[in-house]
């Protein structure tokens, strides 16, 4: 049995990876989540690790064969966590295989079709820069696989399913017209988990970097409209250019300030939260992930767009009064 440590195992993706590993006969799960996800095998070993502390990380890696790094959250956590991980892994007696979860954000504002060898641009804010820094900390570590997923959706995903659903229900997202013509490189979380599991097992994956998204991605408009229809958040609204400008330039900053103030005061978060300008920028960006390498080397396939959206919408049905369920759940994921 291989000892597999999942870092960020309480997050959207970490939790799914942990569940998959807990059910695998070849792996023994080691989780950094003290409570553990519901439904997970009680037999999993739980450890406490300060991911930003190299010493704590080194201790956590003892006896570990494989690490799946799903650390997310704040940019500095991503960078420090990756640095600590690869530093500790480099010094380990038996260096573990690291499956490192990066992001398509590393391609920055580039347009067009992106293969994995395309230049990385840190021109889209702190999150993108952090992902590039995290990847570069793995540069001298040979036993690593880097995964760059696109837009991750799933029934309990907050970033690209939960908050999008609330914006759709609130009529603040919908058909954005020219502002939503960018490519939405969707990937369902379970397909991402499949890729992670394959990478933990396949020798051919070692040292590789892989884009992960569905091969026929929708535009953002198509995603919003199809997701809204799956959710029953209809009729879908056409969001005018004027409304988007207000949302991105007029309301975003004061709403964000309100949100931070509310959090500091211990009040419930705004729901739905302000639409960040970064999302509206992404919705225009014509960037398409070329995922042929994952298909070729990993034999990776993913579910259809319809199946992925139907599953992502499944947790969001309305109650008897027609109100969208789970609207109040706006907590920010600490990890991915």
């Amino acid at each position, binding site marked *: 049995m291989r000892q597999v440590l999942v870092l960020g195992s309480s997050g959207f993706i970490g939790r799914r990876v942990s569940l998959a590993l807990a059910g695998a006969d070849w792996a023994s799960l080691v989780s950094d989540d003290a409570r553990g996800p519901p439904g997970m095998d009680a037999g999993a070993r739980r450890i406490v690790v300060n991911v930003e502390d190299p010493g704590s990380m080194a201790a956590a890696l003892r006896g570990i064969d494989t690490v799946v790094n799903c650390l997310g959250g704040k940019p500095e956590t991503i960078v420090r966590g990756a640095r600590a991980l690869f530093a500790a892994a480099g010094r380990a007696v038996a260096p573990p295989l690291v499956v490192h979860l990066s992001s398509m954000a590393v391609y920055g504002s580039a*347009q067009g079709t992106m293969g994995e060898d395309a230049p990385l641009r840190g021109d889209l804010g702190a999150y993108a820069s952090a992902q590039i820094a995290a990847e570069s900390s793995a540069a001298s570590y040979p036993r690593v696989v880097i995964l760059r997923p696109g837009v991750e959706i799933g029934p309990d995903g907050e970033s690209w399913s939960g908050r999008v659903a609330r914006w759709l229900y609130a009529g603040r997202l*919908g*058909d954005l*017209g*020219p502002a939503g*013509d960018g490519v939405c490189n969707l990937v369902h979380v379970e397909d991402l988990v499949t890729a992670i599991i394959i990478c933990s097992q396949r020798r051919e994956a070692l040292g590789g970097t892989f884009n992960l998204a569905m091969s026929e991605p929708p535009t953002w408009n198509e995603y919003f*409209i199809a997701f809204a*229809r799956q959710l029953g958040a*209809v*009729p*879908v*609204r*056409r*969001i*005018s*250019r*004027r409304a988007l400008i207000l949302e991105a330039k007029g309301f975003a900053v004061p709403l964000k300030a309100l949100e931070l103030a509310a959090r500091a005061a211990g009040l419930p978060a705004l729901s739905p939260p302000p639409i960040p300008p970064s999302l509206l920028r992404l919705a225009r960006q*014509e960037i398409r992930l070329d995922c042929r390498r994952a298909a070729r080397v990993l034999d990776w396939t993913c579910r259809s767009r319809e199946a992925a959206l139907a599953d992502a919408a499944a947790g969001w049905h309305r109650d008897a009064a027609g109100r969208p369920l789970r609207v109040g759940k706006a907590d920010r994921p600490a990890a991915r």
Partner: protein
Amino acid sequence: MIASANDLPDGHCLDADICIVGAGAAGIAMAMELIDSGRDVLLLESGGFDDDPGTQALYAGSVADERLHSPPDRYRQRRFGGSTTIWGGRCMPFDAIDFAVRDYLPHSGWPIGLGDLMPYYPKANRLCEAGDFAYTVAEAFPVPTRPMMDGFASAHFTTDTLERFSCPTDFGARYGHKLRAATALRVLLHANVTAIRLDPAGERVDTLEVRTLSGRRFTARARHCVLATGGLEVARLLLASRDRHPKGIGNGHDLVGRYYMCHVAGTIGTLRFTTPLAAVHHGYDISAEGIYCRRRLALTAQTQRAQGIGNFIARLHHPRITDPAHRNAVLSLLFLARPFIPYEYAKRLHGDEQVAARAWLAHVRNVLSGPLDVLRFAWHMLRDRKLAERKFPSIVIRSRANMYSLDFHAEQQPNPASRVTLARDVDALGMPRLHVDWRYTEGDVQTVRRALELLAEDVRASGIGRFDFDTASVEREMTRYGAYGGHHIGTARMGADPRTSVVDADCRVHGVGNLFIASAAVFPTSSQANPTLTVVALALRLANHLQGPGAKA
């Protein structure tokens, strides 16, 4: 990329695989379809991003009868986006019967059928931003919408087909950013094609002559040339290019400019319902993807054949606005707001009727009598039309008296005597202007009259009320505002036989190997449907042809 022809050196020759003339619905749809084709595409547009009176004046011409047809520079726009900058957005596909040879309808029949367009309609629908290609209530709404006229049973009409509405989408504003970002596509603004020059044998386009209003001249040469300039300008360009063929290109059999059709349309009669107010639903339903959809009365194909008449649809409509007897505050408001409503809409809303001072006063009284209705309507128009990007398509007034008029839109039969020709005078670039002699036939009157009679019978037989109209007034009402504006059809008709048609089934001009037409000019018949959706579908089909079989020609 998008550039201006004013920045090109004089005498320059532009080369491309495919040159499209006209950046309206058809030209932009083709360009969008060709973006990733690997072809080098040149899209020449006469206008710029905005309305320019000097450019628009190039459209000016004359009409044989001003009561029957609007001036040629109305209802069409010579600018990036073309007439989609002013269109109303009504979308619906043609019916299968529209393509058929109908022995009772002279010159009818297309060399292609509905099945040939079906692969392109859904994408055309998306480009028009009219949502799913779902044109029946059953397809568009999982839960059927309210019936149009509850209790109406008819062997002649259906009420479950839909018209769907575009935003209305200005193709230039909507897709300009895609064209600008495309690398193998050049859009050249302010580039007026003034002549098509053929090779010495007169069998291929050699060059297109291009001029700007600022005085520059250059040429464009392409393996394939596509005229996407609208039904009037296509005829003008073909007729004005006479250096190899003295009667104009494609005009060996004197067909270019003939068979000119619009639609016959009007508002007529009074439909009084005896059913409850709620049994009548003449407004819009919104589909899941957010599209305004509306049911209409559609004459069945079977009835058309049995009666030997053309295609016909009708909608319930408010009473005539100009007559204050309707005593409706909102309608009177619309009358008084006439100076603020664009010409193209005002014409059919009020016509050019002279209204007596006493009637003006009555309108003012009507407005004052319903301040709440006026406020509600004003708010609705502001929120759902003025400020909305997806605009509420038309004015829908619920009648408290349960009384409506009927708004009809009918097929016009092809008539060689209805035509556009070149006038003697020329525009600022030296091109002969157009002269429009639009005509209708007794058959057109018969289509409308017979359809209305059948409707009156069916309403009475259903026991839901009665529809009264003056049979003798049909011709007057269907020509009250003249030919339906903006639908320019048939001037370069499609057919298999060069003796009776201008282009073949692939939209290629007979006898000219590399000249194609993407326009309602090629429609041999006019259908009941507004033409834009079918123009876009045909343009997409042509774009595919030029990448496939047509690329080798």
